[in-house]
């Protein structure tokens, strides 16, 4: 066994103390009819060979592509100090800080995370982390249902489809209903339709969920949506992208009761889907409905400032079947990553990253339009948008052969929509270079001409 310290003499000493001859005796409580005798698996691999195997697998992934793909997960410049700090074993190999006297490092960084996310979202109660953007959105819907005692949530069709799907899965087993709010041709959520859905007095709505920016990159009229939700007695949930909050109005400013979102852009690697960071923030009024851990500031027996997990009566290990959620393990190290990233970027750096991404996106829009791929929607956007390219999936595949990852073919998410299935969802961030934009536009023009010919 590669990491075990026991020598044969150690094992013999322990067995002798127990009065046993063989370790097999320790497994005699497993009934013979269900006792296994080993595993049909390959043998152990020395570290050198394992390293080769892993290197070869990693090399089979294409990470050399010039990428314009976002769709909920974004490439950003991550200052070098972030991984240096997060790699420290004192953070990475600690457990949940149940013993606060020897966990102040983890506890203070979570408090700092809560503080900085409270500032970005404009909401006071930030959970120590949830799993990802999708599950944070589902939990936000559940908070609305618990807090209002109503049984229906409305989710914009322009919320990330996987967040919608996850919310459906979470609510499928319950008596609660999720209904979509349709979108308008300009890419924004149809607020007239929202008004009609809210007006069904026989079935009062617990919560209204919109994303800012939404899945098409479009900026929604969040203040108006929030006003409509509140007028009907519903809570309002904003699904946010955290880097954008350096320049966009914070959810608290437009009256959102809850913000949920994917924290990956705050310094986390793309990593083919995780581990990521579920952001969940709420107003003080909803404190006791917020699932997961919260860290608070207090003092020790000598009056020194210290930090501790608090309001734990919401949690599963105390409350069992009456807990706010079953969440136990969270994404603490990912929250630490976000904390270190925000400290390294500072307010100016974060704003510069968000604004430069917006500037590059406008260059990208002009270049693609000149190459024959205009925007599909005309509502304002920040750094992501959809363009119309007839035969988009085929064009996307042809561009891939030229080393360009031309965003997301929207046909994969909206196969039945006659407009969107000819769409490519593309984004730019501060790491998108002007020469990459030129190369994309030139290749697109070339590929489109080939397909036409």
């Amino acid at each position, binding site marked *: 066994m590669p990491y075990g310290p026991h020598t044969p003499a150690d094992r013999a000493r322990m067995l002798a103390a127990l009065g046993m001859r063989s370790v097999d005796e320790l497994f005699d409580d497993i009934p013979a009819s269900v*006792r296994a005798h080993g595993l049909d698996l390959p043998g152990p691999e020395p570290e050198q060979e394992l390293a080769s195997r892993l290197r070869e697998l990693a090399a089979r992934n294409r990470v050399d592509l010039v990428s314009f793909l976002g769709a909920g997960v974004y490439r950003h410049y991550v200052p070098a100090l972030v991984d240096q700090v997060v790699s420290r074993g*004192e953070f990475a190999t*600690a*457990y949940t800080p149940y*013993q606060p006297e020897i966990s102040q490092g983890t506890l203070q960084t979570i408090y700092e995370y809560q503080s900085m996310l409270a500032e970005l979202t404009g909401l006071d109660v930030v959970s120590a982390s949830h799993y990802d953007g999708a599950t944070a959105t589902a939990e936000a819907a559940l908070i609305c249902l618990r807090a209002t005692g109503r049984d229906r949530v409305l989710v914009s069709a322009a919320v990330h489809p996987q967040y919608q799907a996850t919310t459906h899965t979470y609510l499928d087993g319950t008596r609660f209903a999720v209904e979509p709010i349709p979108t308008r041709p300009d890419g924004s959520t149809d607020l007239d339709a929202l008004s009609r859905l809210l007006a069904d007095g026989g079935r009062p709505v617990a919560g209204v969920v919109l994303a800012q920016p939404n899945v098409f990159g479009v900026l929604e009229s969040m203040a108006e949506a929030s006003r409509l939700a509140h007028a009907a007695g519903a809570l309002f949930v904003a699904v946010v992208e955290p880097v954008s909050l350096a320049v966009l109005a914070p959810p608290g400013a437009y009256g959102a009761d809850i913000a949920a979102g994917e924290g990956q852009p705050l310094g986390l690697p793309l990593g083919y889907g*995780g581990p990521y960071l579920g952001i969940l923030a709420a107003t003080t009024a909803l404190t006791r409905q917020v699932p997961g851990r919260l860290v608070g500031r207090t003092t020790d027996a000598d009056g020194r400032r210290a930090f501790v997990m608090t309001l734990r009566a919401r949690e599963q290990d105390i409350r069992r079947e009456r807990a706010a959620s079953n969440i136990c393990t969270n994404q603490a190290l990912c929250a630490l990553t976000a904390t270190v990233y925000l400290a390294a970027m500072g307010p100016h750096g974060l*704003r510069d990253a968000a604004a430069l991404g917006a500037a590059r996106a406008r260059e990208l829009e002009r270049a693609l339009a000149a190459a024959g791929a205009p925007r599909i929607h005309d509502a304002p956007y920040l750094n992501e948008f959809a363009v119309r390219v007839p035969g988009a999936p085929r064009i996307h595949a042809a561009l891939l052969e030229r080393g360009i990852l031309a965003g997301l073919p929207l046909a994969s998410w909206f196969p039945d929509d006659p407009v969107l299935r000819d769409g490519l969802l593309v984004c730019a961030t501060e790491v998108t270079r002007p020469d990459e934009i030129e190369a994309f536009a030139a290749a697109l023009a070339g590929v489109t001409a080939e397909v036409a010919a």
Partner: protein
Amino acid sequence: MTDLRPAVGPVLQPTLDELSRPGRGVTRVPHPPADALAGIPAEQLRARPPALPEVDEPEAVRHFVNLSHLNFAVDTGFYPLGSCTMKWNPKINEWAARLPGFADLHPLVPDAAAQGTLQLLWELEQWLCEISGMRAVTLQPAAGAQGELTGILMVRAYHRSRGDVERSEIIVPDSSHGTNPATASMAGYRTVTVPSDARGGVDLVALRAALGLRTAALMLTNPSTLGLFEDQVVEILEAVHAVGALAYMDGANFNAVMGTFRPGAAGFDAMHFNTHKTFATPHGGGGPGSGPVAVGERLLPFLPAPRVLREADGSFRLERPGERPASIGRVRSYVGSVGVLVRAYAYLRAHGGSGLREVSEDAVLAANYLRHRLRGTYDIPYDRVCKHEFVASSATLHRETGIRTLDVAKRLIDHGHHPPTIYFPLIVEEAMLIEPTETEALETLDDFADALVTIAAEAHTDPDAVHTAPHTAPVRRLDEATAARQPDLHWRPMTGAEMPCPD
């Protein structure tokens, strides 16, 4: 004289906002053009920039490094936290997860661009099938609790597919993790709790009485949270299946039985793994974990989508939307916490089948050895062969000295060890759940046992030292009541002159 503080060793730290000074910071990215946000309506924009801390790089790094010194961790010492399997986290796994080929891959790239990761995930699924004796595995769940929810939602889909819609109850033993009943509630079920018998197993008579046509499933942790193998498992599974219910195994304690017990082969319908326990992925101060769920024949059609499939030509792909209509759908975004799964894969490959069995043997041997060492000093409520962990109790010590398990735990800190899990499982008075794992040297186990024996003696000779412990930690016991009564969950927003200017 000003306050002295040590130049090395742990020191409490100011918060980032206390360190912040306007104008500090490092230029990390190029400045945007002045009109970068010109296309965006003013009402969509932030009125003021966020008041985030402004710190320079040396300050930032020292802040976090000094904070790290306030943490206990597997990298710094023995962490015998029962039910948590705080084993060594091998360093090559950290290296592997950071390989750019894995780390820089976007989750929505076409399958052709992700063949390395897809192959790894597919192979990992095959390994977990063999280890669990199950038919298939979903790697999506982000943690054990989410694995439980995934499993119970599949149970619901299974009953529903048979037109069996009256089942409304999930049965859990009274020794179960809190996540089990909380999961049942999230999935819309009522929890029925059955007692444990005198030997620490499920009370079979009570279980049989609780089972019926209303039962959707039994959730059973095996080995149990008492560290005991459920030796009536065959009878339990028969009874559950006899009423048409399914059996879910909470695999939190699987570190005890790799290669000696395969739940699928024994008749369980589903189980989850905690990769952050059994397969040594780091706990990260609370997460991230990963909770793959393995299922048998009955639940196969209902696995979350997408699964990773291997094509006839040996290439790999993700299931397409709608390809398997019976699926319960997604339980999260993308395919799972892949960075965690890369580490778990490396761990499995490093050990191989024989090594995994040795892991369990050594974990069980170490736990039994410690149980033996503490017998006579602390109560051992279920004093029979345990698996990877065991419950000790300070009940007698408490009666004799007034010293409680909490005090013993805090005093262990002064002896250089992390305390065990305390006051769990709930059914044992003054419980200490002790799990040494297989990666701690015999000298460490002896030192820990010696410390607990010493503390028991101190409880008689110097109870105050124990009651007021810890004395050597960076802080003493905390005022948790005030923390809960007057929650202070973030620093105050900075105001006025300290507000950062736009550029």
